[in-house]
């Protein structure tokens, strides 16, 4: 044996580490970007960062391959051939911006609504919304309508906060964690970290999900529910808990509207709260049987009160859910879960909430002025995402889940589900929608908001929708995030009207982000005479996505390591339950191409258009670029995009004058800033005086906003009353019945809409934890992990049709047909098939070889999913309350077709637009300090 070779134990790691924020998905983890010779050499997680605490996912560590991807666009492009031909010429930024201005200026001066500006997965909605408001078009939203607005809206309307990243289980104290239909790409690292903590403590994790992968695979118990029946299951759990008296009466009486009296008298007030002379709902005090103010210091609400013949919310709720049609035996077959298993889950929930209850020794004062020596711990927590919400009954299902955790007394209780600042935030603290377009003027307020009644709907004088996506119309009254998935179909149908310019950012609407992709591609190229039906399309993207080919003007964006960004308390911050937090991105490397950060481009466009707030009194640009805006824009006096290091000396947090050195301070601090809550404010936030005062000090709101949770939703009942014929604003007759059902004031379950006869199998998608939307496939490392997808078939279907490895199946829906590779999966609901989302690519896109597996065998389910329901009126295939795209309502038929080598449908190969191109070509070798090629 020769001597052991000597190993260099301490090689230099890098020349420099620059700390910024990841953007390989929407998590916003902190990253250390290592540089050698000025190039990115390695990326790992920032240990100090509140989101990821040093860990990083598969995507995050692969970010180095995103900055070298050959798919990166390199200069502004102008279309010179037909749409979809890929014939572009590179132009200068000046030409590009002036072209855009020449299109947009006349629209603003004559008909601002003819611009539709919709953004995808960007994280700058407080800027893009403000820009659209200044432009004056009502037609603005981001992608929430096709993502998870049911989650957001049901949470806000019920408890002033949602799942998603807006809260999290009390990982340190919970004793049972139940996941419903989670999308594992969302709030991904925090949930993984949390599950790891629970596993280390031996805490049980339960999954309710048709598919047993990922988090469901490690869950201690799995309920393989039939898609679309989660609400039915949850209401049955509520039935069991009520039946056994296992609900937190004290919590319900103090912190919810369970004690409010509901008007039971037939007429236009039926189902609304009984009000006092000050138009306030009130409760009956159990000590004297007399009306008392709901927020009175000494009030003890009587949940069993009957006053003047009117009963409480609590009684109406109990009456509803104690009915035998909510019993486990009545729902078991539809849910695909035996009744005994449902009863077992209810017993586990009750055991965690009540048998494992504890008192957290933290004194606090509630908003009524009462001092408490302890906080009641209820150690059971939940999380849910798109799995339950991407159904046409998803809003009410999410509401049902919130009702469940409220009945257990666990929301904001120690051990339960904890909201993150700026949440909790009641409906009343949100704006209502603004939508009236006036030539040459801005909108009078933000586009998106929370309607309280039909009076807030965005309707024109004739009752037709004011917005191109029909958000806030009778089609989707509470569509707080808009309906991006309907913009192109509606614009082409001229329903409610035609537009001139479609302006999109970071949304792959010509591929995986649209329902009915094949038809949307036709819509984008549809002509009337010689002119396109959508006359102009401006698109900003960093990469050669499928959508680039269909735009007329391309504004190439940078990658996330080359840009400024602002993860702001004004939209989606990086808070924790114990701290508000925000963060930045900054150019840790400079772009090597003629590209610009979209937000800077948007501010430039705004200045050229003279939009208010973007020019000074002399009409000169007010902001040099997005970085300048981040430091110096003020939304309200003293409140800007970033909360940290405000004031002239940088010592103020939250409120304070702009500080020109603010971004440097963020960079020095690792790219983020936190404002910690006092320990007294950490739980019971909606009712906790210490929290409310802290939130006002920080600038989250200007006065304390305590509120009660809405078990009974008066807003929903107002729409139901309208559907029943009451009130001056009436829905069209064809929508009355579905509004009457969907707008129930108590959480309700109804079968998913649009299910057709002869299609017996549910078809789902989910996103892998190692791939985000369509971005991942251009990444040389990630595509080696998951370069193609199969349709997973349950054992029953696999065996019944004699499927074998290598087979394909024809999958048919009323909308279309695909022929795709299949694989067998036993850990799957027997009535369900599923595949990974957005792996399938169109040939020629993303700088991949046209024979890439993503394009040859990879596929989308989107071709099977119609954006409208069958029948007249073009009713969106969405939740009737919020307009959330009902992706997961899809049902199909499966037929074995035997071995194939090519998925169908196939589309013509997309031409390759001008792009950076280099990447790490074939057989690339890179070694820093060893003369490797770049």
């Amino acid at each position, binding site marked *: *044996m*020769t001597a*052991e*070779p000597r*190993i260099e*134990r*301490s*090689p230099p790691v890098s020349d420099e580490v620059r700390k910024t924020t990841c953007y390989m998905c929407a998590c916003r983890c902190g990253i250390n970007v290592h540089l050698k010779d000025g190039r990115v050499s390695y990326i*790992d*997680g920032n*240990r100090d960062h509140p989101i990821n605490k*040093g860990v*990083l*996912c*598969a995507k995050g*560590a*692969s970010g180095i391959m995103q900055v070298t991807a050959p798919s990166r666009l390199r200069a502004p492009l102008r279309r010179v051939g037909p749409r979809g031909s890929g014939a572009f010429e590179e132009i200068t930024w000046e030409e590009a911006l002036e072209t855009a201005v020449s299109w947009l200026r006349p629209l603003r001066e004559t008909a601002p609504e003819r611009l539709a500006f919709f953004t995808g997965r960007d994280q700058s909605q407080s800027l893009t919304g403000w820009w659209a408001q200044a432009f004056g078009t009502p037609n603005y939203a981001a992608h929430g309508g096709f993502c998870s607005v049911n989650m957001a809206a049901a949470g806000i309307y019920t408890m002033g906060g949602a799942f998603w990243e807006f809260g999290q289980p009390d990982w340190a104290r919970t004793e049972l964690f139940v996941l419903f239909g989670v999308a594992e790409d969302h709030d991904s690292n925090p949930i*993984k*970290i949390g599950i*790891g*903590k629970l*596993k*280390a403590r031996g805490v049980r994790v339960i999954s309710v999900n048709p598919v*047993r992968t*990922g988090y*469901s*695979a*490690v869950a*201690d*118990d*799995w309920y393989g529910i039939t898609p679309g029946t989660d609400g039915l299951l949850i209401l049955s759990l509520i039935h069991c808990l009520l*039946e*056994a*008296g296992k609900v937190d*009466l004290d919590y319900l009486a103090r912190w919810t509207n369970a004690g409010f009296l509901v008007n039971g008298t037939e007429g236009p007030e039926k189902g609304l709260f009984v009000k006092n002379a000050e138009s306030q709902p009130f409760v009956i005090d159990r000590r004297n049987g007399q009306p008392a103010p709901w927020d009175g210091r000494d009030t003890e609400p009587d949940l069993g009160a009957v006053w003047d013949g009117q009963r409480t919310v609590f009684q109406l709720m*109990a*009456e509803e859910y104690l009915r035998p049609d909510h019993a486990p035996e009545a729902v078991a077959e539809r849910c695909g879960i035996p009744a005994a298993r449902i009863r*077992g889950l*209810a017993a586990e929930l009750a055991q965690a909430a009540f048998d494992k209850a504890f008192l957290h020794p933290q004194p606090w004062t509630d908003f009524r002025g009462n001092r408490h020596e302890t906080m009641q711990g209820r150690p059971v927590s939940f999380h849910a995402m798109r799995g339950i919400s991407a159904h046409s009954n998803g809003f009410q299902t999410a509401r049902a889940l919130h009702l469940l955790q409220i009945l257990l007394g666990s929301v904001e209780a120690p051990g339960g589900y904890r909201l993150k600042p700026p949440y909790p935030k009641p409906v009343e603290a949100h704006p209502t929608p603004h939508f009236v377009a006036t030539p040459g003027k801005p909108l009078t307020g933000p586009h998106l908001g929370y309607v309280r009644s039909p009076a807030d709907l965005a309707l024109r004088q004739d009752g037709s929708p004011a917005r191109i996506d029909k958000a806030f119309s009778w089609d989707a009254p509470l569509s707080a995030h808009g309906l991006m998935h309907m913009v192109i179909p509606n614009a082409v149908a001229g329903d409610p009207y035609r537009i001139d310019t479609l302006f999109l950012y970071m949304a792959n609407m010509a591929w995986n982000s649209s329902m009915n992709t094949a038809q949307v591609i036709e819509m984008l190229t549809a002509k009337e005479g010689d002119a396109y039906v959508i006359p102009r399309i401006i698109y900003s993207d960093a990469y050669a996505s499928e959508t680039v080919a269909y735009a007329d003007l391309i504004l190439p964006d940078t990658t996330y390591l080359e840009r400024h960004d602002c993860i702001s308390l004004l939209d989606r911050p990086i808070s924790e339950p114990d701290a508000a937090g925000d963060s930045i991105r900054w150019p840790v490397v400079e772009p090597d191409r003629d590209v610009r950060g979209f937000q800077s481009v948007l501010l430039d466009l705004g200045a050229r258009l003279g939009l208010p707030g973007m020019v000074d009194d002399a009409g000169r640009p007010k902001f040099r670029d997005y970085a300048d805006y981040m430091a110096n824009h003020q939304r309200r006096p003293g409140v800007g995009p970033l909360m940290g290091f405000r004031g002239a000396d940088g010592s103020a947090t939250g409120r304070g004058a702009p500080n020109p050195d603010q971004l440097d301070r963020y960079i020095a601090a690792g790219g983020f800033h936190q404002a910690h809550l006092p320990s007294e404010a950490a739980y019971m936030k909606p009712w906790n005086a210490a929290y409310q005062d802290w939130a006002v000090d920080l600038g989250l709101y200007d006065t304390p906003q305590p509120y009660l949770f809405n078990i009974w939703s008066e807003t929903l009942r107002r729409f139901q009353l309208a559907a029943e014929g009451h009130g001056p604003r009436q829905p069209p007759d064809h929508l009355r019945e579905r509004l009457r059902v969907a707008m129930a004031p108590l959480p309700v379950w109804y079968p998913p809409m649009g299910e057709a006869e002869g299609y017996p199998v549910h078809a789902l998608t989910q996103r892998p*934890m*190692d791939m985000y939307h369509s971005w991942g496939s251009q990444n*040389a*490392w990630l*595509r*080696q*992990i998951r*370069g193609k997808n199969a349709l997973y078939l349950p054992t029953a279907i696999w065996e019944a049709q004699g499927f074998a490895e290598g087979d394909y199946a024809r999958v048919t829906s009323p909308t279309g047909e695909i022929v795709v590779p299949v694989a067998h*999966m*036993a*850990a799957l609901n027997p009535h369900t098939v599923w595949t990974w989302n957005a792996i399938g690519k169109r040939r020629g896109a993303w700088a991949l*070889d046209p024979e*890439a597996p993503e394009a040859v065998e990879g596929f989308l389910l989107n071709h099977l999913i119609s954006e409208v329901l069958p029948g007249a009126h073009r009713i969106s295939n969405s939740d009737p309350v919020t307009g959330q795209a009902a992706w997961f309502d899809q049902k199909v038929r499966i037929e074995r077709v035997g071995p194939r080598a090519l998925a169908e449908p196939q589309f013509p190969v997309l031409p390759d637009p001008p792009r950076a191109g280099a990447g*790490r070509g*074939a*057989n690339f*070798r*890179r*070694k*820093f300090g060893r003369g*490797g090629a770049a």
Partner: protein
Amino acid sequence: MTALPETTARKLGLVIDLDTCVGCQACVTACKGWNDQGYGVPLSDQDPYGADPSGVFLNRVHAYQMQPPEGASVVVNFPRSCLHCEVAPCVTVCPTGASFKRAEDGIVLVNEDACIGCGLCAWACPYGAREMDAAAGVMKKCTLCVDRIYNDNLAPEDRLPACVRTCPTGARHFGDLSDPGSAVSRLVAEREGYALMPEMETKPVNRYLPPRRKGAAGVAPLVPLVDVQATGLAGWLDRMLGKI
């Protein structure tokens, strides 16, 4: 042929918790990222944007479906990398001495300057833990991040293999398995950690913690307060609110 050390002073290795691994692939790309610029030649990719991309990964995660004797089918995510065997057949088979096991800590490495790319070690390894770099023609394998774990240029808390540092669920643990008092040895003892394929007599150092038993908790069923259908809501309310 190459000799193994008689003993090693320590047995550094990984303990991987199969009850906790969600299969997120974070360890796969963290490993790729570090080792692409770390010990030895970079981990090349062939045809990275083409029809048949393939590159070197020192750590891969596979998902397996299993049907237990009772209950629903399960999915187990299984990370796979070099196990740093005590009786490493990849070392003894090496004709040039390039493959070796360090006496100091038991890490199995390839000295790339001596590697002729014959591939015998990959054939000898029963775990499929080695991958040939097609560009450089040398064998690549997990180094246990030997250039991190002793690296004075890293903060002490970062002197971990990249896969361990990045694992979001904390399913990967690193330490000295020769020390019965080490955190990893205690985990193995508590959770009945096991070696892969002991019948191969390679004596792997790495351990896997098995998935915990799954299924219902066996909590006693809830007892109804009253027979609501018999008493009506009023009877239920009396009992319910009488609890306050």
